[in-house]
């Protein structure tokens, strides 16, 4: 088990390195750098001005060297201005070149400076993640139990009335992407044209003061899309368990139906959905980006859109590190959990 985890962590690190290098390469293509220079300076910069801006900030070195600097394995670039002052990535405002370290990358714990938010990347990511974490917490709280209940109810008796109705519901929710369901919810529940006005159409206030009124719709929108999928997986696993030999034995012994479901079937039926729920996290990340944009909730997904739209390289890299980390860690947890929950795999 220890060796297995160690190997997985090793693969994780290699994957993260490859992916960040890919992001680094794409954001450092020349047209993107030009756009960055123009958004930082002004949009009427001449080609020479763009060049000198990029030169000054060390963007014109080769990509592997810049990547090494960002990682913190190479000393970072310093530029001596005409008036003798030295500027560079590691030299924070108010420090001189001598006081500053020559290595400053993520290995040293420095994530860089966001050009969009004019803040350190680590603070931006921290704040935004906290907001998104709250959103995700409520999404999970709504999605997982309701999906499991739906799936178990539908899978108890395959082909029954409950099964048909709930399965149709589950298919419909999986066919409704967040930007469709969100728009429909906003139209029905918040607009003055329909006149229900039960909820708020934006979740901007929910960042300071989340209430049921301004927070429920974003949560519901994300939860619905994932719910259908988990419910269908749970249903499939439940129907499989319900046709197993030991369930038939229990029925023949005269155990009541509710006892069969609760005591015999449920535990085994929940192994497969566990992995599915864990693998849903990457998908939820997409949903988060859409819903935060739709409801103007300024969390992690919103920051991603801002960073990508303005080619904020450092912030984008940090965001991709975080999201890749989330994806890989959930994969790891799902694998370990699967082995732990399923004794047959553990023995072999």
């Amino acid at each position, binding site marked *: 088990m220890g060796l297995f985890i160690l190997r997985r962590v090793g*693969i994780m690190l290699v*994957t993260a390195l*490859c*992916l960040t290098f890919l*992001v680094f390469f*794409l*954001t450092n*293509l*020349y*047209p*993107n750098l*030009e*756009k960055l220079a123009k958004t930082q300076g002004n949009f009427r910069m001449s080609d020479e001005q763009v060049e000198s801006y990029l030169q000054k900030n060390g963007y014109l070195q080769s990509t592997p060297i810049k990547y090494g600097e960002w990682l913190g394995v190479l000393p970072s670039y310093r530029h001596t201005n005409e008036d003798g002052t030295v500027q560079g990535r590691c030299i924070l405002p108010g420090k001189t070149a001598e006081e500053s370290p020559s290595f400053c990358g993520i290995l040293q714990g420095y994530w860089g400076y966001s050009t969009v938010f004019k803040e350190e990347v680590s603070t931006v990511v921290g704040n935004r993640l906290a907001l998104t974490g709250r959103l995700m917490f409520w999404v999970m709280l709504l999605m997982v139990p309701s999906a499991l209940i739906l799936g178990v109810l539908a899978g108890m*008796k395959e082909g*029954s*009335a*409950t099964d048909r*109705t709930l399965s149709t519901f589950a*298919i*419909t929710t*999986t*066919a*409704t*992407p967040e*930007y*469709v369901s969100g*728009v*429909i919810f*906003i*139209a029905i529940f*918040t*607009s*003055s*044209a*329909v006149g229900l006005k039960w909820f708020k*159409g934006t979740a901007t206030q929910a960042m300071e003061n989340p209430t049921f009124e301004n927070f429920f719709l974003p949560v519901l929108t994300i939860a619905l899309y994932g719910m259908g999928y988990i419910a269908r997986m749970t249903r499939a696993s439940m129907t499989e368990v319900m046709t197993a030999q030991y369930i038939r034995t229990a029925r023949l012994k005269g155990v009541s139906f509710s006892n069969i479901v609760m005591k015999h079937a449920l535990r085994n039926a929940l192994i497969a959905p566990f992995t599915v729920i864990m693998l849903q996290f*990457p998908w939820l*990340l*997409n949903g988060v*980006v*859409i819903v935060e*944009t*739709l409801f103007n909730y300024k969390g992690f*997904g919103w920051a*991603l*859109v801002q960073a*990508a*739209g303005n*080619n904020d390289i450092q912030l*984008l890299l940090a*965001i*991709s590190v975080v*999201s*890749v980390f989330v*994806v*890989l860690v959930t*994969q790891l947890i799902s694998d370990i959990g699967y082995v732990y929950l399923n004794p047959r795999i553990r023995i072999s």
Partner: protein
Amino acid sequence: MEPLTWTGSIAFLNPLLLLALGLLALSIVVWMLASIVLPEDQMTVNPDGTLSSSSGLRNLIQAALRYSFLAIVGLAVAYIVLGILMGTSAGIIGAISQQFLPVWLSLIILYAMSIAFKRKLGLYGKLFDSPIGMIGFGLVMFWVFTGIFGALDLIVTHDPLAQLSGMKNKVPGTPLASLEEGQYAWYLLGGDNLARDVFSRMVKGAWIVVQIAPLATMFAFMVGITLGLPAGYYGGRLDTLLSFLANLILAFPVILLFYLLVTPEIVATGVPNYMAAVLFVFPIIFLGVLLNSRYYTRPNFRTPLLIGVLGVALWLYLSLISTSGYIINTDSYRIWGLPTYLDLFDIPGGILVVFVSVVFVNSPTVFRIVRGLALDIKTRDYVAAAQTRGEGPWYIMLWEILPNARGPLIVDFCLRIGYTTILLGTLGFFGLGLPPESPDWGSTINEGRKLLSIYLHPALPPALALLSLVLGLNLLADGLREESLKD
């Protein structure tokens, strides 16, 4: 001109429809409760060996359910038929069903033909045994026909890009402010915030989806199959490497990838052209290997066949990746491609990058599915038999393993077209790739959502259109799965 109401002179049907809908909802609830509360029907075995069950309360409820459902279907047909006959005097619904007349006719012909010959049509014919599959197929074909006829300018009432004065944000059924000769007199589903016709934009948007989604999914399948079969069949280093690459792409959040790939800046660097050049090679490899592995024992037949097929495929490939004489055309350097007089079609950079990134996102998942199937099937006896016969590995992969994996692959193909549709909508929703005035559903939803609290009509039609198409594809996949499991 009078503004149109929703149902016009066929409004007498509305209370009936409401009643039927109420009955259906009620009977579904009762049905579910009854299935929990009531005991199961007792089966009795007759002396002649047949089974008969008592017609209890359950059957009564099921009958109620069936009849209320049939009533709703009947009423919907009545709305459409009356609408086709009466046109605008039957309100917006009537006018719309009249506009969709070519679609209804094609659907009727398609269904009549398919049901008549369903025993000869294999898996496709079996689809018409399952109600779920039929409903799904109907929804999908509705949008396919809408897309095709919309592209032929049959259904649309106005130019989807034309802005008519005085029609900004007007509600559905508003007559044109200044009617000219030969113009359709109403905006059937209202005008958007740039005074364009919402109905025509929705119909035109269907064409964009119908064009891109199946084709992109097919390319993703070609890539996934060409790489997944050897990975599963050979295993070893090749498998490890390819799986690592696939997992690498899968670990990327899709939206981040889109934001990095689908920007005008990236198009300017020529990266999408390189990706297109690589990704679009796979169908050619696939075709070449497929035919060669089958016919290599008959060189007299194989050689002309391969020259013909690969020649056409190569020509299509080159015209696909080269635009106005160049494969890659950036400011700093360019690579020569097919000369313009041989170039069959040009794909604008915006569309190409959307297409490439959708293929790129989908193919690792297909790869994983194909690899899993190949791993499972290669242990079967008929594969061992083929190996003993001395067949080559590619023959076994493409002519033994692939045909036996077709069931799950067809089902996944349907689901994946739906997923691709959702991805295309996501791109439009974030304003990536397609030009901003393009009528695709994602962009229209994005534009409409800004004024959603006051005006519902610009955003809802494309949203519901996308929902129904993806739902149709999911139901179709479900029906296919059910039918293919029956074998």
